[in-house]
């Protein structure tokens, strides 16, 4: 098998045995990026030089017999919202087009310690807000299975680069489904870990209480290897879970005897595409054939998931994004022009004698904030900041934010109740396969429904994984989602691997020119 299609597990064996070198592997990935990324657009930045340097250094150290990290020599792609020291980190926003962090995110530090080769920064929806990567201000990403279609979002680039065999592993983030939904759209594996399993330090925040970094790969085994490298308690993140990291890469191959799966009733209702439903039902049958018992479970409050999410996430985002004000971080408007314009407005108002309007005119500081943010943020980000500012404002807080917090608790309680009877719940990852670019951009609400089945895991803080389970007639991948109780990542990965030993959906690759 060609290097670029091989799994990380295979590549690690080959690297260790000396059959291949990291430089060969890295060059192969870079060549594939060169060949295919003009059309796919998965990367915002390819770190060619530093990746090759890193690969050479790993090879040299391996030759000398030095002890190497867990991912020694394996290329990993990074979603462009993880701060990477000395590398532009943009969040796919004009706001941060030139932002070079002076520090590494904890996940980056861990990847470096594991001797991974950081191959590039992947495209995403601006500030991780969106479900199709069409909200990127810096580039277009297309689905490798059909270049007319979207790769999903917000980790669209992270998923697309895997499907297009540009890297064996990639890092995504998931706030409402942003790892699992693009994994499903691109036919790869994506895991959103339990909140706190992976440190958020250095992840440019969208919604702090929902954001979680997670591994993306082409198989459950590779996902386990990557999760093991990035998970772990971090004193720099107060919300980090202080638990020992299991040896996911070891346990992933142990089959689960007597696995009890719960089929989420609410995930098979209105809005579910029939082809998706058929594939998911078929996947459930595969599990049955592997000895799993399947029962129906109910998550009665999941129907409020999207509503709750679109109150909590924008609220937190409105606050998290306040630091991009032109004074401290991010794009600043052209001050000379701005002051000139302001002076003109003032003169006009003075001439008109309208004292009230004159009194309400911006000070230069306020105008600077206003204009910098107006220029730096894209429409989806602005929409959510407006929403969040509204729901947090005095007089609306109780009706929206506080109520959302209450329902969030009920959603978690639904899961707790379900997991008393089953080990994992199962259902579709997304209601539809990928769609053609541009078809939903004018309808944000329709786009929001893409997170219907994933968002409740973020609200409950539990883990979920998406794996390929079939294709639509038009040839687009379909994903199945497994969700587990808090800290049940080992179980999720084992169950995913179990499925992949019986099926080969995850081994299919799109044909690219």
């Amino acid at each position, binding site marked *: 098998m060609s290097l670029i299609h091989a799994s990380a597990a295979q590549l690690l064996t080959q690297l260790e045995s000396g059959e291949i070198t990291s430089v060969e592997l890295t060059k192969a990935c870079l060549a594939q990026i060169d060949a295919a990324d003009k059309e796919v657009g998965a990367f915002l930045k390819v770190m060619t030089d530093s990746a090759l340097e890193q690969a050479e250094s790993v090879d040299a150290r391996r030759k000398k017999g030095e002890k190497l990290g867990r991912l020694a020599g394996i290329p990993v792609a990074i979603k462009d919202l993880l*701060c990477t020291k000395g590398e532009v980190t943009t969040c796919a926003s004009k706001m941060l087009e030139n932002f070079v962090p002076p520090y590494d995110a904890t996940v980056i530090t861990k990847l470096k310690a594991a001797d991974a080769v950081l191959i590039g920064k992947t495209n995403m929806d601006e500030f991780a807000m969106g479900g199709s990567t069409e909200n990127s201000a810096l580039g277009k990403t297309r689905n490798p299975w059909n270049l007319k279609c979207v790769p999903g979002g917000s980790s669209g680039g992270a998923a697309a680069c895997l499907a297009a065999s540009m890297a064996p592993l990639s890092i995504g983030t998931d706030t409402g489904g942003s790892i699992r939904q693009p994994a499903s759209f691109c036919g790869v594996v994506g895991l959103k870990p339990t909140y706190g399993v992976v440190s958020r330090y250095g992840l440019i925040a969208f919604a702090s209480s929902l954001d979680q970094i997670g591994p993306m790969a082409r198989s459950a085994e590779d996902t386990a290897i990557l999760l093991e490298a990035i998970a772990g308690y971090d004193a720099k993140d*107060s*919300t980090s879970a202080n638990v020992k990291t299991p040896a996911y890469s070891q346990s992933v191959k142990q089959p689960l005897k007597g696995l009890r799966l719960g089929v989420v009733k609410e995930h098979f209702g209105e809005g579910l595409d029939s082809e998706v439903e058929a594939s998911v039902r078929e996947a459930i049958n595969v599990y049955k054939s592997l000895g799993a018992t399947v029962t129906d479970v109910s998550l009665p409050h999941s129907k409020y998931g999207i509503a709750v999410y679109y109150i909590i996430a924008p609220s937190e985002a409105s606050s998290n994004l306040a630091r991009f004000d032109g004074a401290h971080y991010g794009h600043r408007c052209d001050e000379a022009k701005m002051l000139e314009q302001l002076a003109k407005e003032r003169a006009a108002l003075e001439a008109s004698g309208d004292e009230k309007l004159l009194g309400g005119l911006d000070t230069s500081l306020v105008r600077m904030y206003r204009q910098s943010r107006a220029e730096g943020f894209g429409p989806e980000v602005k929409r959510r900041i407006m929403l969040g500012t509204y729901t947090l404002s005095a007089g609306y807080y109780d009706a929206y934010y506080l109520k959302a917090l209450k329902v969030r608790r009920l959603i978690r309680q639904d899961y707790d109740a379900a997991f008393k009877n089953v080990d994992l719940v199962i259902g579709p990852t997304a209601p539809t396969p990928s769609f053609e670019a541009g078809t939903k951009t004018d309808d944000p609400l329709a786009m929001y429904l893409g997170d219907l089945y994933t968002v409740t895991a973020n609200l409950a803080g539990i883990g979920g994984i998406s794996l390929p389970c079939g294709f639509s007639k038009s040839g687009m991948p379909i994903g199945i989602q497994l969700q587990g109780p808090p800290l049940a990542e080992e179980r999720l990965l084992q169950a995913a691997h179990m499925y992949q030993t019986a099926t080969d959906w995850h081994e299919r690759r799109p044909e690219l020119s």
Partner: protein
Amino acid sequence: MSESPYEIIIGLEVHVQLATQTKLFCRCSTKYGAPPNTQTCPVCLAMPGTLPVMNRHAFELAMQTACALNLEIPRFTKWDRKNYYYPDLPKGYQISQYDLPMSQNGYLLISDPKGQFEPRKVRIIRAHLEEDAGKSMHDEAAGKADSRIDLNRTGTPLLEIVSEPDMRSPLEAKAYLTELKLILEYLGVSDCNMQEGSLRVDANVNLHLQTPEGKVATPIVEIKNMNSFRAVERAIAYEAERQYEVWQETKQKIGDVPKQTRGWDDQAQVTRGQRHKEESSDYRYFPEPDLAPVTTTEAEVAAVAASLCELPRQLRERLESQYKIPAYDADVIVNQGKKTVDYYESLAKLGGDGKLASNWVQQEVLRIQKERGIEIEAFPITAERLAGLVKAVAGKEIDGTRAKDVFAEMLDSGKTAADVMKEMGIEKVDDSELENLCRELLEANPKVVSDLKEGTLKAVGVLIGQAKKKNPNIDPGTFRQMCIDLATKM
């Protein structure tokens, strides 16, 4: 004093910088006076992606303060974000505590040993932790309207202590602040340096007036920028008069106009209206999702309460009863701070006379400290050495006037009281020697004897002068009494 036409209602908000080495949510130094932006890191600069981590020590200092102010410490407290835009606020929000502060419902007792106001219990609504903002420096003088931002201060731990409007005069406000500062200093939770901004006070002031229609309240004004307790006292007094004048003119009552913020101009000794802040007052508080709530156990709080040092109030009471000194003396000594109390206690114990020791500390030690502008630690005579002198005075080996000469000689020489007294030829005159001298002088002055017999006691004065010439070491008081006793028996 004529009856004031109004009653002043005062509530104080005090921001105290806690004495931690590092900031509230990162490990940058909090040291004062470093060059701008040198004590910063990605976290306190609000670099995208960074996260706060609470400084446990700051929380412990806050708990100590809360215990000392009789505040209840709930088992669960959380952090909130207070959102607003300002150039010195890099995150665009301040991490503070909103609806579940780390302590609430306490009080502070204040009183005045001079009796200028009745003792009062000032209730404290809450004390909560928050981070400080940075500093904007506006270089408008250069004509460029250039603004620079120093973020060294951002993230410095502050405890905001909010009182009920329970104070009724500038003097009471000053007493509250003085006692609060003293407590903070005794606990060692803050250095309370107002110049460096470790202690900042905002005062909420309005008036209650009796009118034919009943009692009315004037609109509340918040006074800021006061950088000494004297300034607080004066600002409140000024503001009360100003509000009274405004009232007479406008008859505006509370609620008629929004709460106003005024700054104290120390040069001009006036309060001035401040420009409206360039932000709305809707801070959009919500729970800080990046920080875990803080839980404390009853045992932890009890341990903190038990570990507190003696607080000023207890200390005053103990000094009064243990050393038999008046309340006024205890107040003066305790208000000097813990080190002076320690000095006094050693002096009183070793010198064997609490009141004498108190007099010496108040009159001589404090006088020298003031003259030389030194703290008690730098006072040249140790308590042990000074105790030698106090003991000599208490044992009547030396009279008060000569003792002051001895003190002057001891001050910078490092000599003991005994050595100085020896050099000066001061020794205790024994009773038989004193009696002989007394008889000798009485016999030589029969007129004095007859005067004394008739009860004209002041006649003895002549003899004291003569005796002092013959032996400068005699104790005039003892000699006087002895002469009177002997003469009456003659």
